[in-house]
């Protein structure tokens, strides 16, 4: 019962809020959704204690969903440690975001609709993390996609907002294309889509081949990579990341909840969930590692150059997700989940802090128009500091434990891809610290660059907004320290139980605790130098960034224009699709099919009858002439015929 309530309370809240919205009862909608979420959070904590700490996994079967022949997908909720961790993250961040939104959206006319969407999202996310089979996971997966679509396009009158919403959905669909094929591949091999069956048979199927697009390929590798394509879409990994920065068009609480803490981590969760299968797919894991590592560094390079406060944080999210993926790729799933959890707190904190800044600055988002406001928004300022310290991985903040763990695991994996991930991850750590402090300094310090009208209006946010910040800040400070032993330390094996499986031969996680000292120190050194450089550039030598940008102009432009991914995709996918569509329509349907088909035939018949009717001129001499010719022909024919005989 508790389990059901956790998942369905948010849905209940969403439905009630939706109806209340029709009658403009915004306050009531806020109350309903927030209390539903808080209750759900409370129950999640209870569940976490039972399941994760107490070690009692449970599955609640709700009945059949799709069943045809041997294809069976049930509605079934699975509660093990992996789920329990996600429950805390999702309901925790979501309830904070719900509360924060009361303040942030207070000037909006459709608050009930907003709260309803938020709760709907939370429901879909909970369905995703409690899924007991791949198809139900796909339900949650697409459900969060729709909620994200609705929320990005919440201000639907803005062209950029609904463009971004659509882009997010369609790019995610590209990933889901892979996910769907992955489900099919899994079903083809295992004859089931249920996790228990898949996991139990993975070691047996590992040696099997599958015929995919006329190639005989190792079955689990194919399934693993296809499913990972789905994860790439949802978690904005290199290649399918283009929607995430644009998604910042949504209201800031949405960015915090969906595009930082929860939905985008669904891909990481999926990979960890599938660990018993992926462990037997080493090549797929290598792919995951490489993509993750490349994303980590790629997104960081862009983050350095952006001026929109939310976009900087968005690229940072993208980069951090890369860390989580390469951790999972080297079989350090616990480290990935650990970073997922700590990241949820500090990234939500950063986003909500950014929201607080935007709120204070009369909806200004451009870093170039900020500066010099730290005295006016002291709470937000401190919160942003805490978030940045945690993100950069300074000792005793949350990110310190989890990010270092990932880098150490990558090093300890002792493989080519692991090594690559380690070095790229270290470089990204340096860049992370750099852009974080660039953001801090440009936002809060220096001379004010906003108009005096905006500056006069700068104010600290109301308590309904700062309180959630405070709670998240506690998480950002302590979650690493508190979770360390459980997630990745001595109690790791007992904590995760059977929810995460690592082959005994994959030692990254074991050896991560015994890496050389320089490996442990390197991230901190890099982070400190990143901060130092940012302080130097943006605090003192303020002309330096522009000069360096001018010096390395091509590189700068590449980073600033996001490696031209949008332009590239536009040129090779979007515009050709429409052009081909037009071509097929005009040339294919109209000219060819209709031209030779109905229109052509009817035109032909029409012409033919025209010819026939023209013969009947009505002039007697015409008929007489034709008759004469006919007689001549007949006679000739007879003559020659008999002549021949």
């Amino acid at each position, binding site marked *: 019962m508790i389990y059901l309530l956790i998942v369905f309370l948010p849905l209940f809240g969403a439905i009630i809020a939706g109806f209340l919205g*029709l009658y403009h009862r915004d306050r009531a909608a806020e109350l309903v959704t927030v209390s539903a979420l808080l209750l759900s959070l409370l129950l999640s904590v209870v569940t976490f204690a039972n399941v994760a700490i107490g070690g009692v996994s449970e599955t609640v079967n709700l009945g*059949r*969903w*799709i*069943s*045809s*022949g*041997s*294809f069976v997908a049930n509605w079934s909720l699975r509660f093990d440690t992996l789920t329990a961790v996600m429950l805390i993250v999702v309901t925790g961040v979501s309830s904070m975001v719900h509360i924060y939104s009361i303040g942030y959206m207070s000037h909006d006319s459709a608050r009930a609709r907003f709260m309803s969407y938020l709760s709907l999202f939370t429901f879909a996310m909970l369905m995703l993390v409690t899924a007991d089979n791949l*198809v139900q996971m*796909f*339900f949650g*997966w*697409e*459900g969060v996609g*729709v909620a994200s*679509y609705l929320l990005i*396009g919440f201000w*639907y*009158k803005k*062209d950029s907002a*609904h*463009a971004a*919403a*659509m882009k997010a*959905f*369609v790019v995610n*669909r*590209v990933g*889901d*294309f892979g996910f*769907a*094929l992955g*489900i*099919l*591949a899994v*079903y*083809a091999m295992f004859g089931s889509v249920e996790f228990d069956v898949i996991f139990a048979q993975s070691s047996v199927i590992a040696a099997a081949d599958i*015929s*995919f*697009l*006329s190639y005989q390929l190792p079955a689990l590798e194919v399934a693993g990579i296809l499913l990972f394509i789905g994860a790439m879409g949802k978690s904005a990994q290199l290649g399918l990341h283009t929607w995430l920065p644009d998604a910042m068009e949504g209201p800031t609480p949405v960015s915090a909840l969906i595009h930082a803490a929860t939905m985008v981590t669904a891909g990481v969760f999926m990979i960890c969930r599938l660990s018993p299968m992926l462990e037997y797919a080493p090549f797929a894991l290598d792919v995951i590692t490489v993509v993750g590592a490349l994303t980590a560094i790629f997104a960081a390079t862009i983050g350095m150059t952006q001026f929109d406060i939310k976009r900087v944080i968005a690229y940072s999210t993208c980069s951090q997700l890369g860390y989580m993926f390469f951790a999972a790729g080297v079989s350090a799933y616990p480290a990935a989940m650990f970073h997922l959890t700590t990241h949820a707190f500090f990234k939500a904190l950063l986003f909500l802090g950014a929201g607080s800044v935007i709120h204070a600055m009369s909806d200004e988002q451009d870093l170039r128009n900020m500066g010099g406001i730290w005295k006016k928004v002291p709470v937000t300022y401190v919160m942003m500091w805490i978030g940045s310290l945690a993100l950069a991985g300074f000792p005793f903040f949350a990110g310190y434990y989890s990010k270092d763990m990932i880098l150490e695991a990558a090093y300890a994996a002792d493989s080519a891809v692991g090594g690559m991930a380690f070095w790229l991850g270290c470089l990204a750590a340096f860049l992370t610290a750099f852009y974080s402090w660039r953001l801090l300094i440009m936002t809060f310090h220096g001379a004010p660059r906003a108009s005096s009208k905006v500056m006069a209006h700068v104010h600290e946010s109301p308590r309904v907004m700062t309180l959630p910040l405070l709670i998240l800040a506690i998480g950002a400070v302590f979650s690493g320290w508190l979770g360390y032993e459980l997630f990745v330390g001595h109690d790791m094996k007992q904590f995760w139980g059977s929810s995460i499986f690592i082959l005994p031969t994959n030692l990254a996680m074991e050896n991560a605790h015994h890496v050389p000292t320089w490996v442990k120190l390197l991230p901190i050194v890099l982070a400190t130098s990143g901060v130092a450089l940012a302080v130097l550039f943006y605090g003192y030598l303020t002309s330096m960034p522009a000069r360096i940008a001018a010096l390395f102009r091509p590189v700068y432009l590449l980073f600033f224009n996001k490696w031209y991914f949008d332009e590239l995709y536009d040129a090779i996918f979007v515009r050709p*699709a*429409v052009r*081909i*569509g*037009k071509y*097929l*329509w005009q040339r*294919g*349907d*109209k000219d060819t*099919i*209709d031209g030779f*088909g*109905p229109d052509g035939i*009817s035109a032909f018949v029409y012409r033919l009858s025209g010819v026939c009717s023209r013969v009947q001129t009505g002039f007697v001499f015409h008929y007489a002439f034709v008759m004469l010719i006919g007689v001549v022909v007949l006679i000739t024919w007879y003559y020659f015929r008999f002549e021949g005989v």
Partner: protein
Amino acid sequence: MSVSWPILSIVTFMPLAGVLFLLMIRGDEHILARNSRRVALWVSSFTFFLSLPLLFGFDSTIIGYQFEEKAVWLAGTGIGYHIGIDGISMPFVLLSTLLTPLAILASWKAIAHRVREYMIAFLVLETMMVGMFVSLDMLMFYLFFEAVLIPMFLIIGIWGGSRRVYAAFKFFLYTLLGSVLMLVCILVMYVDAGTTDIPALTEHQFAGSMQTWLFLGFLASFAVKVPMWPVHTWLPDAHVQAPTAGSMILAGVLLKMGGYGFLRFSLPMFPLASEFFAPLIFTMSIIAVIYTSLVALAQTDMKKLIAYSSVAHMGFVTIGIFTMTEQGIAGAMFQMISHGLVSAALFFSVGVIYDRLHTREISAYGGVAAVMPRYAVFFMFMMLASVGLPGTSGFVGEMLVLVGAWHASSWVAFFAATGLVLGAAYMLWLYRRVMFGAIINDEVKAMEPMQMREFSIFLPLSVLVLLFGVYPMALLDVMAVSIQFLLDGLSASGLSVLAAR
């Protein structure tokens, strides 16, 4: 379940009885129109309620036909009056009886002239549709199958848009061409088997070479109806010119006649040919999915866009049927029912705003969501159902078809799955251009909010789409035994594809 009265015949011919009522109405034009609407709505609603026992009295555990009725018609010829339903036809009967009253309700205001004749056409259409689905005699089937054309031809040709005559003739010629070939095949089959009784023909073994020709003859007819690429070009024109209600029935029920025909005739009667031609069908279907999705992207007319999307969705249906797997066929069936509900609702969505602005051009709209928020919710929901969102009926069919398709070949599944991406692209783009953005057209600003009548059309469709999305077993259980029976028949004829299921 045995019933003492011929319920299936009553359901089939009740609308025709309604036509008699309509003919009796007297009065000036205004009263005539008002009363015709009411009578038509009452009759079709009553028919729907009469058809409910078919659903609740249906025993989904038994093989074969239920509610069977047999009567001597042409004694001694092997041709008779034989009707009945199984798990494959029952859902279609209900779909027809449900959509007809909704379609009549949808034309309440939009049709202002010759209302009585319009309503007569719709009621006749309903009888023909239901009759076609319940026929268990091939000749009866053919008569109903062809007769469906006539009222629809009139509905498009008389109450349609500006190019209605062109569209009506295109529609008629295309479908007639196919059916002539089918008629030839029916005669050949009659000569070969000596009967036109469908269950008997299903038992009959046609020679291999004959199967090939028969299959192609039926294909010509069914492919046009589905419609499959490349004989789909009548559909966009017909939809664009048809009145809203006509489009609802056309997309909702008439397109399903082809798919139903494949399941009732092609597969069970010509199994060898079906297996032989499956790759051809797959190719045509995949082209349909990709080609028409791309074409849909380029459309500037709302109805045309949705019409092309129908072709793409029906591509999934034909793929599913010819995978000859349980999941594929169940998925195809499910997709047909789901598409019946969703596309009817989508065409109605277009009709709702067409009634207000009298244009189907997408560019004339923009920002409608601000003026009609409740309408925006329904349209959004149906749009998402159309792109196959899990939790709506659209997903279940697509997923099962893909499962079956992978079994046939991963290539088929791969190409079919691209429909997921393309479908999302054109539908979301449509929604975005119509509903979102700032209002640029002043007429949009003046659009009335949704009315109760429109609400009452959307609501049942939405409830069903959601129900079938969350609890698809309501439908899958009904079909399972019949599909199993069909597949057993196929494996009895020694098809190799059926080795594993």
